[in-house]
């Protein structure tokens, strides 16, 4: 639960829910937007993580 991935999922889920609730009025639209935002956040997080993997730090 306190792994980086687990906390990233929890954080992304919370932010997606709040953004979607702010931007849409109908519950179905809120759900769809939250799902898209969550996918985008997680996808971007994992993608950026892989890009950083190749950086010699």
């Amino acid at each position, binding site marked *: 639960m*306190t792994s980086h991935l687990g*906390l990233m999922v*929890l*954080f992304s889920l*919370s*932010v997606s*829910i*709040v953004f979607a*609730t*702010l931007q849409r009025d109908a*519950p179905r639209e809120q759900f769809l937007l939250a799902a898209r935002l969550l996918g985008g956040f997680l996808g971007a997080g994992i993608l950026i993580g892989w890009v950083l993997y190749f950086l010699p730090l």
Partner: protein
Amino acid sequence: MTAKPASRPDFTRIALILAAAWALPGAGHLWLGRRQKGLIFLVTLLLMFVFGLWLEGRLFPFELKQPLVALMALADLGLGLPYLITRALGAGGGRVVAVTYEYGNTFMIVAGLLNVLVMLDAVDVAEGRK
């Protein structure tokens, strides 16, 4: 015949809604009858705040000598009463050596900032823009 004055927003009411929305996440929307939105904001933002505390994050004090700390304190303060109550109880001191310290900070800071967005949304609704 005199012209009818244009309708102006009731600033006292809007200020009260803004204060309620700051004090308790979602309270502004609940006041305005947006029950579903208000409950979602209330549960989600309070959970983020509690997770931040559980992850041993810190509620930052206003230290003007350290501008970044003061900015983070301002963001924390966005959550209203939960922030003030937690500080009054002496909790939220954070544990810098904890692995989850920075995660906890992030959860609480972002919860406060998101509540500022929710407050602005409540004002938009109160003024009839949404």
